[in-house]
């Protein structure tokens, strides 16, 4: 790519100034869409190099000397390694590639080089979308295709050079014409259910909560700032300490993972409510069936079912924003009577794991006797005073995960604490389970709603005590109380900054609707949505094979439409002439072909000779045509109609 060219080769034609301008514009677009991903130094250096090369080619034409190229390449690689530590991966890779594009421009003189550079620019434009697929970013990237396509176009010969915006217009037209085909292909290209190779930004960030919990599951979720749901309350919102949203109840522990089990549905949630609150939730698409509810719901909303342990599941996956209204109890007594089977399940622990945790629990039990509350206190006190640390990047845990966590690493986040606490409780003989859901949220004063983000995902424990039933215990609060009291947004207070007030705020809200549409329509169009594509037509699940068939069929339809367009010729505006052409075709079939130099009269006379059986008809046709053509300036419409009809009815009998 970089290096001196063989001087013996014939020097190819140089590209025009305008073509090079277009190429530079495409490269500038690449740098613009990547600006946020590069360090400011690299970004500005690349811009400078691009501008310098543009200036040099325009005002000091000549090749960039070869001895300059290798050092520049080395400097580029050096800067990238310095910035990112290596040259592999998404960020360093795109930085290196953008640098190579700019370097490529420094030696671009021939049409071939120009084509290759523009194609490379297209690739880099697409690569920018790997960093973020927001609507504006996508549109800017699509806009960046215009100079690239126009660069190719300008390499074609015999073209005038209009002003730059005018020159970009045909490419815009081409892209607009391509849109129907694009959208069809976009909808029907089968999505991969699992990636072929490692993905740079794990899709887990958008999956929301899952119905099982293993170490490290939450960490991507906890850094995902996208909204999970919006909650409006009838009356004042519950205090911060009670904003727990229950999603999954996890019962089974196998030493690493917590998983939920199917508890009976169709039974009322065994809850005695003391203080209830009515509220509505608007849930962002999760493609799961679970509906988070404020702890603890009294009954399920329509088209959903409640489980005995307080989980609520919709009948269908939540593929679009779902609104539901609920009533929950803030003070409650949940399942005051525990049946033996459930009790056994709530005490079950796998054999052969975490001996030290078991020993500690036995020790507590021996010390406090039958006082369950004292054991819980002891456990929470241990988390509070035992040197535990809250971090989103904990050290990895070994085979005995709980032992490792309790006695070695002592760092982790909600799922570690909930998991360890529940195991300790079970080991001490107290029925316990893990609850996963959301906690906290940001109270929006303007809109009077609680915005719960994915980063508000949380896990806590429930222990069963005789009398109160299941009691929520949040061991994370013992370690990091502000996680509960202040939530993710911290003490933002009621003071809104100037840029979130009044008109600007309302404009931002309106813009948010467009963003939501883009998020749902484009970004969220994944394998699950795709499989539900034909639901309105009565086909609930479209599998990959069917998608491929549909894709091929629609491509064939588009292909034929394109062919019709390509083959279409303007119909003859002269109707008499068109009819004459039709007559010529019919006679040609019968073996009488009109010669190029032959007049209509001569030709038809010849036809009469060849087809004496149709003398009368042909003679009439000839007279009609001569009359139409040559008798008057404006022939009568009746005559024209008669001629066309006669031509349509004329059937030559082939001579045998």
């Amino acid at each position, binding site marked *: 790519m970089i290096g001196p060219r063989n001087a013996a080769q014939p020097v190819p034609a140089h590209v025009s100034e305008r073509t090079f301008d277009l190429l530079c514009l495409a490269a500038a677009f690449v740098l613009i869409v990547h600006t946020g991903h590069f360090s400011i130094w690299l970004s500005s250096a690349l811009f400078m190099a691009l501008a310098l090369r543009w200036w040099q080619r325009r005002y000091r034409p000549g090749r960039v000397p070869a001895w300059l190229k290798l050092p520049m390449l080395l400097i580029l690689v050096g800067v990238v390694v310095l910035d990112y530590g290596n040259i592999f991966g998404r960020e360093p890779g795109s930085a290196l590639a953008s640098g190579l594009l700019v370097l490529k421009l420094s030696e671009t003189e021939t049409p071939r080089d120009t*084509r290759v550079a523009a194609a490379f620019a*297209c690739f880099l434009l697409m690569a920018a979308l*790997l960093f973020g697929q927001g609507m504006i970013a996508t549109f800017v990237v699509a806009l960046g295709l215009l100079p690239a396509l126009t660069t*190719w176009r300008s390499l*074609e010969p015999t073209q005038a050079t209009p002003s730059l915006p005018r020159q970009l217009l045909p490419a815009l037209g081409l892209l607009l014409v*391509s849109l129907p085909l694009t*959208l069809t292909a976009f909808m029907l*290209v089968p999505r991969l259910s699992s*990636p072929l190779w490692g993905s740079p930004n794990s899709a887990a960030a958008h999956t929301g909560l899952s119905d099982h919990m293993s170490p490290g599951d939450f960490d991507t979720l906890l850094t995902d700032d996208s909204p999970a749901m919006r909650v409006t309350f009838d009356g004042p919102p519950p205090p911060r300490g009670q904003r727990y949203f229950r999603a999954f109840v996890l019962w089974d522990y196998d030493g690493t993972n917590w998983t939920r089990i199917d508890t009976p549905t169709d039974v009322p949630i065994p809850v005695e409510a003391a203080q209830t609150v009515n509220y509505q939730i608007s849930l962002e698409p999760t493609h799961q069936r679970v509906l988070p509810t404020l702890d603890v719901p009294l009954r399920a909303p329509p088209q959903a079912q409640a489980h005995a342990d307080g989980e609520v599941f919709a009948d269908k996956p939540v593929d679009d924003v779902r609104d539901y209204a609920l009533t929950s109890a803030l003070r409650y007594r949940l399942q005051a009577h525990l049946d033996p089977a459930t009790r056994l399940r709530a005490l079950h622990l796998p054999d052969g794991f975490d001996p030290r945790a078991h020993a500690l629990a036995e020790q507590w039990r021996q010390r406090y006797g039958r006082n369950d509350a004292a054991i819980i206190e002891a456990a929470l006190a241990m988390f509070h005073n035992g040197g535990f640390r809250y971090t989103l990047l904990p050290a990895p845990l070994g085979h005995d995960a709980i032992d490792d966590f309790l006695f070695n690493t002592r760092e982790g986040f909600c799922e570690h604490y909930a998991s360890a606490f529940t195991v300790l409780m079970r080991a001490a003989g107290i029925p316990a389970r893990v609850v996963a859901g959301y906690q906290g949220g940001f109270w929006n004063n303007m809109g009077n709603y609680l915005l719960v983000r994915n980063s508000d995902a949380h896990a806590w424990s429930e222990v069963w005590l005789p009398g109160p039933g299941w009691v929520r215990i949040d061991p994370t609060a013992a370690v990091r109380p502000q996680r509960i009291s202040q939530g993710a947004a911290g003490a933002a207070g009621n003071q809104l900054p100037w840029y979130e007030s009044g008109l600007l705020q309302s404009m931002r809200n309106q813009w948010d609707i467009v963003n939501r549409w883009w998020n749902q329509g484009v970004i969220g169009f994944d394998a699950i949505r795709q499989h539900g594509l034909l639901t309105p037509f009565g086909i609930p699940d479209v599998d990959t094979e069917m998608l491929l068939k549909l894709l091929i069929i629609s491509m064939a339809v588009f292909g034929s439409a394109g062919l019709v367009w390509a083959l279409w010729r303007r119909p003859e505006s002269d109707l008499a002439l068109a009819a004459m052409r039709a007559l010529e075709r019919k006679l040609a079939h019968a073996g009488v072909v009109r010669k190029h130099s032959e007049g209509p009269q001569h030709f038809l006379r010849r036809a009469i000779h060849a087809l004496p059986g149709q003398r009368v008809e042909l003679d009439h046709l000839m007279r009609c045509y001569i009359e139409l053509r040559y008798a008057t300036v404006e022939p009568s419409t009746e005559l024209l109609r008669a001629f066309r009809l006669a031509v349509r009815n004329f059937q030559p009998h082939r001579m045998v």
Partner: protein
Amino acid sequence: MRAPFQRLQQWAERRLPALTRHRRAEELPIQLHRRRIYIVPTGFGMAFTLLLLVMLAGSLNYANNAALLLTCLLGAATSISMLIAFRTLNGLRIRGVRAGHATAGHPIDVTFDVEASRLRQAVRLDLADATQAFDVDGRADITINLPTEHRGWLSLPRLRIWTTWPMGLFRAWSWIHPQYAVLVWPRAELSGPSPMLPLEDNRKQRLHVGEDLASLRDYRSGDSMRHIAWKASARHETLLVKDYEQPQAHHEWRFDWRDLRGLDNEARISRLARWLDEAQAQGRQWSLWLPGEVIGIGGGPSHYARCMSALAVLP
């Protein structure tokens, strides 16, 4: 790389009648239609398709719908550019061919009269080694140089009309082979004896001003003072000059094939060609005797062309 490709092409033309259907010369006008327009991706088009596949795999793998949308957009634009390439040639009509004059060894101008119902851009015509790019909107004359070697009739070779419009990703082409031959004039010899002049010509070499006053005309700079008609000018706003009739110079040359004995045919032809050149350059009158054709006395470009053409077609 090129040699095997050419062999493959020759094999294809031999074996595939669809490609060779229009190899024989055909009558004008020739209209390009879907059965004789071929289209393949260019090398760059292939490479770009590969790039698109990489982009498709990447965006599917990373479940990146925006990137997928962009890839689909580029792919759709590429497919449509293929149709545009086809449409650029479809319906193009070569109405006629005209050729200029050239002597053997010099390229001859061949002009194609091309007609199209709508604008066609960046169409290219390959004739021999020359390529001419042109736009057609309505009608256009495309002139292209055809190299010549020998005198006589030269049939137009098969020529290729092609385009990579609009983006250089696809090449649409069609072979056309119009039934048309151009006449190549003989090459004049470089040096040799002057034509033998009739004796009486020497006496009348001098051009002189005639005696008879023919008319009066406006003064032109360079006119002799002696020719100004002073009396007439006095009655006029401008100077008038007496115009005298120029007498005809009687100095026609008679070129005769039979005078050039002792030379072979081609040498005779090239000598006559040189003499014709000289006579034409000096503005003389001449006649030409050839076996089978006698051309009377005359002068000027059309007479010259007639004589040269007669020389060109000699056996």
